[in-house]
């Protein structure tokens, strides 16, 4: 009972208007201090309560580093050089180690790409899932063990009592990801960060895991930051989509708008790729070139080297000389492109 009450209290602490997680002007650099190269430059992202936000982009665009920044779990070589991260009104970048441990697992749960590698091979999975419960809810070994079995049942692991006593080698990728989800949900977090949760899984298992994530979010009224390189997979689930390119958001807006009317040429290419569109010659449409990292960029639009619009249109000069701002195109739909003009009704407002 006390758990439920404290949860209820927790959820009303912040003013309703304030986003649960707010990342502002985030800069992350990798490398030895002094010679560090920027990989995220001026990243902005907001997640409201009970909202599902998909963060999409090619590998190397900075999605995972953005996620790890939110709980300050960046690898040793990476460092936040500038920006603000607020979670439920609290400044995450100002938190000490104790406060961060109280944030991780407790208020922000995380799951990752390679579920099997995320489990300690020498430790029974039940004991690993129980860690958050014992740590954040102060449950005894027995109570935590019983709760783990319940959680396993909730996330669809068959024979939960027996499986809790198994070691990670006995789990397939899909089952291991269910274990990770059980662990991430165990302390009833307000936000779940799922970093490419289905990338390493079979297609059929992918769908199951995504459905499970969706169900759990709706049931628990939990926010979800869903990170993926595949726009098609996540957009169906998400309320809002943010597309990242070379360390910045280049388009964001309601999921339906992004999918049906993408404004940025990069997003448009992503949509086409995910729909497996074919060109006039019957070949699959592919985006030419490869993603650049933030460090390779000096000036101009980050996407300009691969952009068909920049190559053909009169915008060419702008595209090469300075980077466009994230401009409103319709309601909350924004894109970072010189070719994007605000919709007429928006302009009048």
């Amino acid at each position, binding site marked *: 009972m006390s758990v439920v009450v404290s949860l209820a209290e927790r959820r009303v602490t912040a003013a309703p208007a304030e986003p649960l997680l707010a990342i502002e002007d985030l800069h992350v650099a990798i490398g030895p201090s002094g010679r560090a190269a920027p990989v995220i430059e001026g990243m902005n992202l907001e997640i409201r309560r009970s909202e599902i936000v998909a963060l999409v982009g090619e590998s190397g665009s900075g999605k995972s580093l953005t996620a790890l920044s939110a*709980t300050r*779990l960046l*690898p040793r070589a990476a460092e936040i050089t500038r920006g603000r991260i607020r979670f439920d009104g609290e400044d995450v970048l100002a938190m000490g*180690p*104790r406060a961060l*441990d*109280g*944030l*991780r*697992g*407790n208020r922000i*749960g*995380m799951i*990752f790409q*390679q579920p099997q*590698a*995320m*489990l*300690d*091979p*020498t*430790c029974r999975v039940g004991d*690993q899932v129980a*860690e*958050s419960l014992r*740590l*954040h809810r102060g449950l005894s070994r027995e109570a935590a063990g019983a709760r783990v079995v319940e959680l396993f049942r909730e996330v669809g692991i068959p024979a939960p009592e027996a499986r809790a006593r198994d*070691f990670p*080698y*006995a789990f397939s990728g899909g089952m291991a990801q269910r274990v*990770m989800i059980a*662990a*991430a949900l165990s*302390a009833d977090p307000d936000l779940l960060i799922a970093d490419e949760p289905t990338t390493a899984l079979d297609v059929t298992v992918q769908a199951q895991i995504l459905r499970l994530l969706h169900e759990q979010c709706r049931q628990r009224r939990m926010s979800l930051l869903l990170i993926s390189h595949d726009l098609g997979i996540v957009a169906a689930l998400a309320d809002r989509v943010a597309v990242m390119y070379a360390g910045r958001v280049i388009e964001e807006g309601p999921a339906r708008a992004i999918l049906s009317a993408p404004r940025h040429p990069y997003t448009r290419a992503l949509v086409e790729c995910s729909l497996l569109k074919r060109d006039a010659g019957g070949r699959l449409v592919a985006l030419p070139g490869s993603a650049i990292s933030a460090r390779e960029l000096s000036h101009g639009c980050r996407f300009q080297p691969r952009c068909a619009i920049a190559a053909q249109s009169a915008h060419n000069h702008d595209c090469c000389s300075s980077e466009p701002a994230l401009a409103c195109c319709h309601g909350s739909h924004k894109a970072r492109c010189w070719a994007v003009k605000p919709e007429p009704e928006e302009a009048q407002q």
Partner: protein
Amino acid sequence: MWHFALRRGTVLLLTLFVVSVVAFLIPYIGEGDPALLVLRARIADPNVDPATLEAMRRQLGLDRPLAIQYLAWLGDALRGDFGLSFIRRAPVGDMLGGALLVSITLALSALLLALLVSAPLGTLAAMRPGGRADTAATLLTQTLIAIPEYWMAPMGILIFALWLGWLPSAGWDGPASLVLPALVLALRPLAYFTRIIRAAMIDVLDAPYITAARSRGLGMTQTVMRHGLRNGAMPVITLFALWLAGLLGGSVVVEVIFAIPGMGRLIYEAVINKDIPVLQAGFVAIVALAVVINTLVDLAYLAINPALRHSHGA
């Protein structure tokens, strides 16, 4: 699991068989006539009377076929009877038992001491590579590896026995006399353990499951204790076993300097004096112990890594 035990047991027996044959043949190495060796050890005269030699051959049973001799020797050896020492005229089994006990005590004390210091030191160094603890650990291990025991031991005696008078300078008489030799013996394994623990823990701490544990809210220390140490333990166990097997054969320098009646001194003296029965028994005992230690290491691997347990048909 049973399959594994059976296979290991077979390997163990085969190894011991080969070792026993080699040990049995030791007297035939060199001059080739054990009777001559025995007589030379007993009488100073280099010119041996042929009749005496023949009598000695019969007395020792050397006129029987080699295979029969081997089986007789093996039967005695299995009962712990390796005959009498040429020099001390005492049963070799008793001499060896005493010396082994001394060496095992010394080796285990030294290695456990080394592990006790190197585990936290190496882990601390691994948590911040290039940090202050890491630099200090590197400096310390480099120094310890470079300084030989024959310098360390006299310095220890000088400081702790002669100047401070805290510990006995030599001998084997109670726990106090164990401290200084164990300390000196621990320094080099301590350095090597620290290095391998540092390397293993750097790998382990970069593993995804460590990030996952941190994402559940486990602090760094808790994460290392719960998920780091076990995973980093494999190479440490291997190195520990190698050192243990090595030190059981005795550590001649330390045993001689501290006048400790261990395996190192026993075998050293047996080699100098051509005390064949002692050499035979010592050889068999050391190899047998090494094989046993290796088996224990494999069992330890199984205990640590459940996936291995699975693949061995548990």
